[in-house]
């Protein structure tokens, strides 16, 4: 059965069964991944995927069902109806109607027109460049080249019709360096239009690993901290759900009801930036047209992120932040490109301003060490000790602990070195950020 046939039958059957509305979300894609190890292809994977999700509105409730077996539309609709019937929540979740979208020009990512053998050669080159960079590079733990392309079609019985396609390229590498008994790893990636830059990627990863050699903990206590861009991106990503109106309405966000209030230092401005060239999009996971908006302006919370359900409940308009992590998942809320606005200071100027404290370049354990409800985090970290504005030595095996909301209030300078982190249910961008105090546990 072709997808258009499936879709037509599903829509007709849902209407016949008394569903007030029916929506289909179809995604298909292909992906390619190759890892190099010791000059050989190590892990190699190619794929083709396709799946369709149906969402029905029945008796004022919505139910979902997803399948990768495109063959029995009636059974899928039955599952969705069955699910709609067990919902108790009174929240209305409207579907989007026909919309006009802004035209998006998205540049092809770097590996789109590369042949398979080119991509394999790139992986081997990336590993080789790391090994040649420095005699202390003993091995490359991971070395990966990935390319993916996909398209999404959304349509519903209210007239919505939205289609998009995109492709992505990313390379990343983790070399391991050794000096005496000590082993350290480094990491770097390149994505989008820069994904063929094996040289830059290898150089950055090896420098990252070497810079950690000789690291040791610092004494426990409170420190002034300079968070480097990727570390701050990781925190933004880990606490993005605080900005979700859904979490707020469920009582699971400290930002609930704080619109219009100062929640951060006046130097902090945070954008939700859907047309950013790094991942531009015309519409969100419900087909609502996207818009660029300021989420925190000079410390003041201007808006939470909404989809159609939370907007209806709050008596507002959707902000175009409906998310669908995959066709199989239900509609949620996520930022598009969450970008902390740069300040004017160079990295060196920030170091001088830090004077005495710590540079935190890397945070680990983000899937476990953060509590998005309380805002608390306690994470393994590494970086550098700074005395009198100069880096003195690497620091490892420490934890930094704090609260995300408190941290936003304690920001006292931002750099001009904006970086985009690897996309992870949304894209995140931040410059280096100077923070008044974080608690550090060393030994």
């Amino acid at each position: 059965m072709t997808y258009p046939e499936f879709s037509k039958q599903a829509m007709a059957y849902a209407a016949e069964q008394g569903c007030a509305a029916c929506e289909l979300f179809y995604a298909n894609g292909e992906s390619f991944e190759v890892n190099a190890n010791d000059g050989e292809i190590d892990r190699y994977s190619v794929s083709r995927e396709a799946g369709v999700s149906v969402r029905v509105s029945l008796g004022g409730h919505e139910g979902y069902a997803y399948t990768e077996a495109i063959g029995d539309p009636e059974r899928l609709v039955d599952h969705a109806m069955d699910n709609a019937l067990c919902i108790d929540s009174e929240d209305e979740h409207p579907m989007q109607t026909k919309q006009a979208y802004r035209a998006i020009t998205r540049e092809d990512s770097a590996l789109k027109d590369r042949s398979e053998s080119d991509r394999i050669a790139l992986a081997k080159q990336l590993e080789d460049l790391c090994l040649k960079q420095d005699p202390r590079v003993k091995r490359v733990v991971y070395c990966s080249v990935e390319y993916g392309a996909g398209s999404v079609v959304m349509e519903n019985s209210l007239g919505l019709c939205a289609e998009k396609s995109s492709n992505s390229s990313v390379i990343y590498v983790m070399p391991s360096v050794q000096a005496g008994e000590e082993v350290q790893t480094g990491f770097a990636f390149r994505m989008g239009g820069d994904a063929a830059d094996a040289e830059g990627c290898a150089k950055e990863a090896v420098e990252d690993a070497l810079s950690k050699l000789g690291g040791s903990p610092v004494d426990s206590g409170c420190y002034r901290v300079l968070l480097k861009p990727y570390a701050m991106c990781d925190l933004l990503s880990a606490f993005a759900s605080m900005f979700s109106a859904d979490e707020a309405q469920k009582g699971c966000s400290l930002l609930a009801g704080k619109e219009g209030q100062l929640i951060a230092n006046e130097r902090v401005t945070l954008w939700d930036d859907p047309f950013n060239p790094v991942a531009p999009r015309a519409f969100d996971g419900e087909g609502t047209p996207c818009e660029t908006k300021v989420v925190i302006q000079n410390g003041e919370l201007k808006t939470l992120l909404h989809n159609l359900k939370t907007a209806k409940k709050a008596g507002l308009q959707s902000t175009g932040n409906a998310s669908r992590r995959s066709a199989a998942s239900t509609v949620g809320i996520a930022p598009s490109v969450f970008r902390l606005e740069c300040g004017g200071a160079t990295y060196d100027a920030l170091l001088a301003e830090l004077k005495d404290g710590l540079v935190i370049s890397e945070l680990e354990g983000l899937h476990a060490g953060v509590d998005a409800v309380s805002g608390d985090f306690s994470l393994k970290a590494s970086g550098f000790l700074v005395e009198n504005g100069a880096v003195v030595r690497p620091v490892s095996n420490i934890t930094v602990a704090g609260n995300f909301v408190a941290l936003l209030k304690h920001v006292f300078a931002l750099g001009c070195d904006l970086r985009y982190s690897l996309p992870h249910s949304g894209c995140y961008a931040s410059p280096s950020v100077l923070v008044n105090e974080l608690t550090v546990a060393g030994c």
Partner: protein
Amino acid sequence: MLAEAQRSGADYAELFVEDTQSSRIEMIDGKVESANYARLCGAGVRVLLGTKSAYAYSADTSERALLETARAAAAALGEAKHAPNEAIFLAQTRHTTPVLLPFDQIGNADRVRVMREGARVMKAASSEVTQALVRYLDQVQRVTIVSTDGVFVSDERPRTRIFLQAVAMKNGEAQTGYDGPGCCRGFEAYRDVIDVERSAQVAADMAVTMLHAPECPAGYLPVVIDGGFGGVIFHEACGHSLEATAVGRNNSVFCGKLNTKIAADCVSAVDDGTFPGEWGSINVDDEGGAPKRNLLIENGILKGYLIDKLGSRRMDMPSTGSSRRQGYTYAPTSRMTNTFICAGTDDEEEMIASMGEGLYAKKMGGGSVNPPTGEFNFTVAEGYWVRNGKIVSPVRGATLIGKGSEVLQKIDRVGKTMWMAPGMCGSLSGTVPTNVGQPRLRVSGITIGGKGGAIE
């Protein structure tokens, strides 16, 4: 299909076909918020030539698509060389998990009834519990694995888990407590094995206790880690470093350490996928091999690794029935099943009474580890500060950091009763259900992270 996959000279080819159906329901404060059904279908073809491997998969399982997938896998190894070797003899084996109440014979009403019970208990536990979240999952994964080794097995893998989370709030502060029992059985699990009310009480008590807990102080001190989910520390800091994915590529601190001492004498550890109905158990591994009880550490001496087929080629050691994958979108690799530190001989109360000042980690949270260095970090979801051998206060926000190889040497007490708890483990071959476990044990010193001052 296997012949097609071997056209470029692969010495091994394997087909994995999957059809998985799952139901997920989420409930907040006793009201069902969302319900989702998903059916994942697809197939993957893997080929090996020596230690080279390639994997191709497709959501389309038609004959034409499977042949194309097989060709794509073959092409990754190089040009077509020769027709494959001799005929393959396949003898089919079927596995099933004994189930009394299959998930396709119950309705959402049955699922919701169990969930409501959990929500009710959490809400009733304390007026400070402001939100009760219940997530329910059941799933049946049906797989068929065929390989040029003559493997032809099919397996049916039912699994269910209920996750209960209570949020307690006071003066703008929020703390969460949770419990998430799960097992490989049918819906009868909620009658026979899983006590939803008890788990709900555990979740609520934890949230309320933590709400009134001061921040944990930082320092390097003794830590007593409780049984059950406390085993996550061994899982993350040692288990992953014993997998062939790390050992076979020389990315593990335990490379070349077989039959040498890597842990204190009181430490023995096992990975055992054969327990009937346990969350991490498997009837057959994802290369069609039989699961085993694999002795990893015996009285501090390293005795074994967890090895899949590719790892077995890299390490020149036999496979241990440890090959697992999330589903057809992942090539299989060496993974854990039910992994635990074995029961010891020490008294559970004495180890706290004699510890002086330190932390009693009653419930561990999640964590992660960097396998090449063995450095790990874990959160302590429910912790208590101990002074002069007595528990003086609950503490929140604690983290434990260190090196797996060092912590293993510093275990100085191992309790008499081992128990396990379920988790989801993410690695190269996706996310698979695993049990972690241990008795209550003590580490003589470990770095505790936290932002609190001294506990009065």
